[in-house]
């Protein structure tokens, strides 16, 4: 009976909140796996060829406990894939898109609840396929997360490990696209009365635009994956050329176009939800309306529109013609401007606010800092002539980790800390959160700053042993310090793990439905814990998401209005404030 109810409440439930939590746990488990793989990489770069402590003997007995060149390639390939497709996307988009969006727009569930649950279980299937690839006799995928052919075909990577991983990506794509269609439909069709487009919270905007990108571009990756599988198993030669091609063969560069038409939007897919979350949190914790909100939304739309037009900057040295190279350079540099608008609006929201440094705000400030560093160094890479030197070096790796790893990572934690009380009716400890935040921020900057310095000094990426090159030998100390910072970063995550365990084990119950004192519907119209179907009655939305005004303090004893609150009926306690 109890087992039965556990099963129906947590496993087969179609409630968007339960599905959101499922995504969260599934993503966090893979985040830990991806992090572990990153530590192996950093070990090898710091102590090339040395036995990996603790786990080496168990994992790599045939190479005496050390990584071999082949294993190193498998580790960076799967680290990248796991992080992007099986960890960050499920946490940021799967968990918070699901949990937050219906609540923020005043809907009772997603538009297609059963499809929603199905998307999650398809994701799990893809995660299991990815894990299964490790069992293949020749091991898992090893052609880089980009899987460029001909290396990723049988010419360079025989064995079914690579195929199963590509299949896992294909299945993962189905999950993402179905989830995206669902979210888009939900936002278009299920907004509560009065919830106009500019009254949508920024988080919802971010999730909505990201879903549009997912639905548009993930199928392109799917097509590339499918053609690659055909090349591997049915003897086609879409992407095979050179000595292994028969009768002319195909074109490896065609794959790169398909991959990056998806691959560049992918970084915006990961960052748009982060931008949304940060825009909301910065306003909430500065107790001021989001500065120039329509412009922020417009800039997010502009980035979404431009994101499919800049992908060529990944191929500057692959042989684009001069005209194409210059066109992609111009578009790439242009996209920096709406991104800067968004960041400047955050600063001006904080400016003259009444800033509360609660944990969600700390993480959001962290996002602003690492996004600033990552975004501005991206401008250098957008320049064709500088990219000719920096392309495929650790500079690129440091740059994209500041955005894809640091900004999305910190934004995930901002979201977890912000919505935790609503999700689980429990409170996280603020001191532990502060310690986790500050150590993570500093260490992220050291790790990825260190990688950028290595790249600036010329170190190519994906090298099992960089010190084969004379000119890279002096970089060993730098790489060691970078690795020490990475190990410390991994250790610091225990603070978060402990915080979550502690919250469930003996943390305070959160009974206040609106502990942060903000006006969006999930806090002002839904009780904690949120029941199935969310709202007793569907809210009638009156205003935008960031209705802060210190002048209200005199009459109401608080500085904000709920999104669905009627001013005539507003009382100090009328929006769930205790």
């Amino acid at each position, binding site marked *: 009976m109890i087992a039965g109810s556990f099963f129906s409440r947590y496993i087969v439930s179609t409630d968007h909140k339960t599905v959101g939590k499922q995504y969260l746990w599934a993503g966090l488990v893979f985040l830990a796996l991806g992090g572990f793989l990153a530590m192996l990489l950093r070990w090898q770069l710091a102590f090339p060829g040395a036995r990996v402590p603790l786990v080496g003997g168990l994992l790599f007995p045939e190479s005496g406990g050390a990584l071999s060149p082949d294993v190193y*390639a498998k580790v960076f390939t799967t680290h990248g894939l796991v992080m992007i497709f099986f960890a960050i996307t499920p946490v940021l988009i799967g968990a918070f898109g699901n949990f937050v969006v219906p609540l923020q727009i005043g809907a009772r569930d997603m538009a297609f609840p059963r499809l929603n649950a199905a998307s999650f279980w398809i994701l799990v299937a893809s995660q299991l396929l990815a894990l299964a690839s490790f069992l293949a006799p020749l091991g898992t995928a090893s052609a880089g997360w980009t899987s460029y052919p*001909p*290396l990723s075909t049988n*010419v*360079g990577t025989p064995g079914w490990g690579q195929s199963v991983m590509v299949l896992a990506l294909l299945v993962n794509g189905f999950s993402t696209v179905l989830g995206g269609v669902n979210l888009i439909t939900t936002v278009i069709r299920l907004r509560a009365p009065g919830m106009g487009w500019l009254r949508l919270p920024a988080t919802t905007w971010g999730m909505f635009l990201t879903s549009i990108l997912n639905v548009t571009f993930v199928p392109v990756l799917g097509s590339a994956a499918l053609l690659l599988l055909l090349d591997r198993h049915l003897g086609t030669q879409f992407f095979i*050329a050179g000595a*292994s*091609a028969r009768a002319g063969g195909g074109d*490896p560069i065609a794959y790169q176009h398909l991959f990056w038409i998806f691959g560049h939007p992918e970084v915006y897919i990961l960052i748009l939800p982060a931008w949304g979350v940060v825009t909301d949190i910065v306003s909430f914790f*500065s107790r*001021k*309306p989001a*500065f*120039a*909100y*329509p412009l922020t939304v417009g800039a997010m739309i502009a980035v979404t529109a431009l994101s499919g037009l800049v992908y060529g900057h990944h191929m500057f*040295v692959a*042989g684009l013609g*001069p005209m194409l190279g210059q066109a992609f*350079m*111009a578009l790439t540099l242009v996209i920096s*401007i709406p991104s*800067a*608008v968004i*960041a*400047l*609006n955050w*600063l001006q929201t904080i*400016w*003259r606010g*009444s*800033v509360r440094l609660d944990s969600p705000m700390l993480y959001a*400030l962290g996002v*602003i800092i690492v996004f*600033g560093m990552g975004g*501005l*160094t991206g*401008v250098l890479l957008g*320049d*064709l*002539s*500088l990219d000719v*030197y920096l392309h*495929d*070096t650790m500079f690129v790796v440091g740059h994209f980790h500041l955005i894809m790893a640091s900004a999305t990572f910190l934004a995930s934690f901002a979201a977890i800390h912000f919505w935790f009380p609503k999700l689980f009716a429990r409170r996280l400890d603020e001191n532990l959160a502060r310690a986790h935040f500050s150590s993570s921020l500093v260490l992220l900057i050291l790790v990825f700053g260190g990688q950028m*310095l*290595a790249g600036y*000094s*010329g170190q*190519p990426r*994906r090298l*099992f042993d960089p010190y084969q*090159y*004379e000119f890279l030998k002096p*970089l*060993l100390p*730098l790489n060691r310090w970078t690795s020490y910072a990475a190990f410390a970063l991994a250790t610091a995550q225990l603070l978060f793990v402990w915080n979550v365990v502690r919250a469930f084990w003996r943390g305070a119950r959160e009974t206040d439905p609106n502990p942060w004192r903000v006006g969006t519907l999930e806090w002002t119209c839904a009780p904690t814990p949120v029941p199935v179907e969310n709202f007793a009655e569907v809210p009638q939305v009156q205003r935008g998401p*960031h209705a802060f005004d*210190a*002048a209200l303090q005199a009459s109401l004893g608080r500085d904000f209005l709920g999104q669905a609150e009627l001013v005539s009926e507003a009382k100090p306690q009328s929006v769930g404030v205790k």
Partner: protein
Amino acid sequence: MNALGVGLPPDASIDAGRLDVVLHDALFAVSAIFLGCLAVLLVALVRHGRRHTAAAESGATAGKMLRSAGVALGLLGIVDGALFVNALRHPTGALADFAEADKLPGVVRIELNAHQWAWDARYAGADGVFGTADDVTSLNRIVVPEGAPVLVELAATDVIHSFFVPALRLKRDAVPGRIGTVSFTATTTGTFEIACAQLCGVNHYKMRGELEVVSPSEYATWLARGSDLATRGYDPDDKSAHWAWPWMAAR
């Protein structure tokens, strides 16, 4: 060079030094923007904390939106514009103006074939035609004269590789089925490393080569001697040695 080993590789071409200037200017500009914004943020956090009453603002007026857009355009527009113009003015257009460079006097042409995990270089030899008995070939080593424009045609046999010479700040993928081109002019004699910058299999990290920049007279001697040796050792039946392709300008 410093305790951590951080620093640009030596620069050995007319483009490298110029590119370093642009790199440093751009780094300086974006760092200044970053630090400026960080300072504003810190001031706001210190001065406008919990005790400060939030200013009454409607959040979105046309004036504010124009201001934000204007500042963004001002800050990044300048950096972006400068970088764009710089890239267009790239003096030799290492990746772009190959046909132009081919007309320069004294140009040195090299065919470079990448494969797992080595670089095969070929010079046309005394007769100036690729694929003949007097071609000079060389493994994992390219010799070029100081001060002369060099054109490299790049191909790959098996998977994608990437020809990266840090001291030239130059990189170009070698793609199976295609012939890619790069040009450079070395200005410093000495030996510089060639790296493979594109993942090309397990020994990617070992695909190391050397670029030797020598004086024009040493180069002439080296080439003549190589050509001579090649002619004498030529074996018409050795099919695997016949990998040359017709030089692009001749096609």
